[in-house]
């Protein structure tokens, strides 16, 4: 064939559509861009889009369909960990490639997957360190607040071990979980307030998706300001803030590897391309589109795959995997990102941003250089032997 | 798997909720022979009170019916006749008082199903049949037999039973219509079907609530005939407002008049018809 098919596996309906739809659009934009520049090895890319509808078994079915029916060379997709876990066996069985663009809990390393989002040490731990620093407010007590599922549980487990290592006692850590879709945060905010009376407190939020809005609204109305109890979130980015009135949230934080507000030529161009694309394709709310970390990770992932294919001179899975390691790419974050030679994760810079009134972040901290991912957190017992990976 | 289920659900002779202790209405067995009628009466109602949010629909009602008796009950609208039947069949629990079937079975403490098993059958004031089932199936369902899950699952009609159904069909003049859906019958036909279901159930005590309402005079006469035939074979309690019909079936037997929840008068039809109070509240001048 004179085209190379690539699969896009993001939920366009159901609960996760809120986050994943824009990843599909970014992927299409990137593919258009690559095609406009002549494609990959002279062949045009052809996107095959499916909608797994936020349904995990359907993810597996759709992945199988993409790989075995549509014969795509690579799949870009998934957001939640469980969707990734659901498709993993398929990619292993059919020996195909998946690029996963979202920050996650780690504890996984698959030959067939490249992780372009952050591992915990590229997000959670630096953020906590920042909160404990003088600049970050010198927090002594921590509320670990999350939605009850694997990513928050794992992250909090890692963080607890990390905090222990920093001398924080268990009495100064409060771990709280809410069900999916929880929308009444009155009690929790009241408890945070109570807990915060005991000393300088920070909240580390791994609240997922939709629940963030009610949480932040409650926070704002209860008068908990960022200067009193800062909240750092790992799942809240520019895209999520579009749905929130950010004025009461000024000063709360998020940790990512990229922010739209980062200033550098690559990013300026990236943002412009995206805005133009949104207008050209008449995406809903095209006037107010924003970029965020997973979008950048998708963008980087597609380009890195392209480079690897061109180096391998083939789309064959094993060959591409072989050439993927060591690929570099000048990313919108302003850093040159490298795909690790062994662990399939990107070396990424860590940035911490404070929410501004306009829904953007002002970067208050960033690492000097990209950091290597530790998918097997050293803070989890049993992972000692895996640190070289 | 199925057999596992079955043994899990139903142990033969299993006691169950609502069954009174030692006299033991064992589940699933039609204990018709078990009714202890040594004192000649099959049904005793003693000081029954039923009150709905303070309104006493039945007020200190005392009544008994002997074995084989055909008893007519009359009384003004709202006198509590239907409520009394509800009490007897377990549909309504009395606020106080006792209701005994035979000497031993306390109806107020038995469930509807147990009461039906014990041998009380009832025709409702408004005809109630299984509307989605055919006439034949209605009779099949009502037919006297073991009504437990397992036996029902494996039940097949034998020729004797089929004959019985055919006979009843003829009796209620729905032969030829046995495959029709019961819901499509006219009002009077449903009345007949319900009577048919009652007969095939072979209860010891039959309760009939306005059996001839909505029947033409000819049909009424036939029903009367039928009841006269059944006289003596079953104990029967009939509630009706059709005086002609009541006179026909009561013959020289006792007629009870209810009023405001208790017995106003009883005696032969002629006696009650002459009673001033009965004329006042019920018959009119």
């Amino acid at each position, binding site marked *: 064939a004179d085209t190379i098919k690539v699969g896009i596996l993001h939920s*366009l309906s159901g609960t996760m559509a809120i986050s994943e739809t824009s990843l599909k659009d970014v992927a299409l934009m990137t593919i258009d861009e690559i095609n406009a520049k002549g494609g990959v090895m002279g062949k045009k890319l052809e996107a095959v*889009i*499916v*909608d*797994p509808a936020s349904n995990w*078994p359907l993810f*597996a*079915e*759709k992945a*199988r*369909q993409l790989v*075995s*029916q549509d014969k795509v060379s690579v799949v870009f997709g998934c957001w939640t960990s*469980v969707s990734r*876990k*659901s498709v*993993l*066996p*398929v990619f292993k069985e059919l020996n195909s490639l998946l690029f996963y663009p979202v920050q996650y809990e780690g*504890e*996984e*390393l698959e030959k067939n997957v490249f992780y372009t989002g952050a591992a915990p040490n590229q997000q959670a731990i630096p953020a906590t360190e920042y909160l404990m620093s003088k600049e970050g407010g010198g927090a002594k007590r921590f509320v670990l607040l999350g939605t*009850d*599922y*694997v990513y928050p*549980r794992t992250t909090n*487990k890692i963080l607890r071990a990390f905090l222990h290592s920093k001398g924080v006692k268990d009495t100064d850590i409060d771990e709280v979980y809410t069900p*999916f879709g929880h929308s009444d945060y009155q009690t929790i905010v009241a408890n945070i307030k109570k807990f915060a009376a005991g000393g300088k407190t920070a909240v580390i939020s791994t609240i997922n998706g939709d629940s963030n809005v009610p949480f932040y609204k409650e926070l704002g109305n209860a008068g908990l300001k960022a200067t009193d109890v800062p909240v750092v979130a790992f799942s809240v980015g520019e895209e999520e803030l579009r749905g929130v009135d950010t004025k009461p949230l000024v000063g709360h934080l998020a940790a990512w590897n990229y922010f739209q507000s980062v200033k550098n030529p690559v990013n300026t161009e990236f943002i412009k391309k995206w805005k133009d694309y949104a207008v050209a394709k008449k995406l809903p709310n095209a006037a107010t589109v924003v970029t965020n970390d997973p979008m950048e990770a998708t963008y980087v992932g597609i380009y890195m795959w392209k480079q690897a294919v061109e180096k391998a001179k083939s789309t064959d899975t094993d060959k591409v995997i072989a050439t993927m390691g060591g690929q570099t790419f000048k990313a919108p974050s302003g850093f040159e990102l490298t795909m690790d030679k062994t662990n399939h994760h990107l070396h990424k810079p860590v940035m911490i941003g404070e929410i501004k009134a306009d829904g953007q972040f002002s970067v208050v901290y960033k690492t000097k250089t990209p950091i290597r991912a530790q998918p097997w957190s050293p803070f989890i017992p*049993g992972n000692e032997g895996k640190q070289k990976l | *798997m*199925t057999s596992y*289920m*079955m043994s*899990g659900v139903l142990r033969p002779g299993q006691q*169950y909720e609502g069954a009174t202790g030692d006299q033991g209405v064992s589940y699933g067995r*039609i204990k018709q022979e078990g009714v202890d009628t040594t004192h000649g009466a099959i049904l005793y109602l003693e000081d029954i009170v039923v009150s709905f949010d303070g309104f006493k629909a039945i007020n200190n009602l005392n009544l008994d019916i002997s074995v084989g008796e055909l008893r007519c009950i009359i009384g003004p609208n709202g006198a509590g006749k239907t409520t009394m039947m509800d009490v007897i069949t377990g*549909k309504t629990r009395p606020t106080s008082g006792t209701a005994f079937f035979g000497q031993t079975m306390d109806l107020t403490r038995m*469930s*509807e*199903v147990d009461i*039906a*098993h014990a041998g009380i059958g*009832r025709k409702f004031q408004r005809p*109630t*049949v*299984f*509307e*989605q*089932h055919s006439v034949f*199936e209605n009779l099949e*369902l*009502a037919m006297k037999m073991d*009504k*437990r*899950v397992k036996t*029902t*699952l494996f*039940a*097949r009609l034998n020729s004797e039973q089929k004959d019985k159904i055919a006979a009843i069909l003829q009796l209620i003049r729905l032969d030829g219509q046995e495959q029709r859906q019961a819901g499509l019958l006219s009002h009077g036909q449903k009345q007949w079907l319900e009577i048919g279901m009652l007969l095939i*159930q072979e209860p010891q005590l039959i309760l009939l609530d306005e059996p001839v309402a909505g029947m033409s005079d000819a049909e009424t006469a036939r029903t009367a005939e039928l009841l006269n035939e059944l006289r003596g074979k079953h104990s029967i309690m009939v509630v009706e407002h059709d005086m002609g019909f009541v006179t026909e079936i009561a013959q020289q037997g006792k007629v009870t008049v209810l009023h405001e929840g208790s017995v106003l008068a009883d005696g032969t039809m002629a006696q009650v018809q002459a009673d001033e109070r009965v004329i006042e509240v019920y018959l009119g001048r």
Partner: protein
Amino acid sequence: MSATTTFAMAKGLFSKPAWTGILVCAVIAVLLPILNLSFPVGHALHISSYTIALVGKFMCYALAALALDLVWGYTGILSLGHGVFFALGAYAHGMYLMRAIGRDGVYQSNLPDFMVFLDWKTYPWYWAMTDSFWYCMALVILVPGVLAFIFGFFAFRSRIKGVYFSIITQAMTFAFMLLFFRNNTGFGGNNGFTDFKRILGFTITAPGTKAALYLITLLILLSALFLCRWIVTSKLGRVLQAVRDSESRLMFIGYNPLWFKLFVWTLSAILCGIAGALYVPQVGIINPSEMSPANSIEMVIWAAVGGRGTLLGPIIGAFTVNGLKSWFTAAFPDLWLYALGLLFILVTLFMQQGVLGLVSKFKKQREPA
């Protein structure tokens, strides 16, 4: 019972056209994996593994829909919580499959990865013996069965009916979902079980294993269909319909609806659990979202689309709805919800008896001509 009478009985189960339909479908269904295995990829007669996997999955759904129809279509008990039985059956089988991974997991431990991760040193008590396949198969039947029995016993004894029953089944599945979402419950949190390696020593991804699972599913689906059909055509079936239409009348002629309802309800839960158990190895994942209220509602919708109270209808419905969903989500990923939504509306408006009702309507129209 002699062979001939059995045969005669079997013949009486369905009408002649229905028999033809069932046989044709069954033969095609059996042919699929054979074609898949015996012709190489690219051959004109080759059936892709994807198709096999898809049909296998749909058969599990069909079994669940069939089970639901038994209680809903015939007894009038609308369950909005059958997903929980499906999922419990699936989890029961999943426990075995997790144990069968052995030390091939990420942490190379005897325990499943998620337990290692939670620092559990041993299996919790309810995982005892789950390394035995047969024990797990017993669980597949017992867990949904016992849960349904207990739940049903109390609900039916209290004479909970109609929407009240539907809503408490929904509450039940919702509660179970939240419970299973908790990591500490010991069933892998929201990720559930996945990444199975083998079943009874066979590699789970091997084409032969898949074909075998597929055929077993087909066999069970057909047997369940015959079983259900036999039940609903028996006198018990008529009692069930009487329960649906006038429960109180039934009591006055001496049937205790409690046991009848409990019987089908439990049987239905068990069938649904079996469907779940067949589903796990074929789909490769089970997690608590199967217990979400929406999933149970979808099952009801399969039955309704196919035509409730017909047994064959729900099977057809499960295939139709899921087939369309699979097709739509790939063919019009942005618009498919419109198409599916419209389908549901049209079915209710124009096909009161579902797809199957449409068939019989056509037949009726042709007959007089």
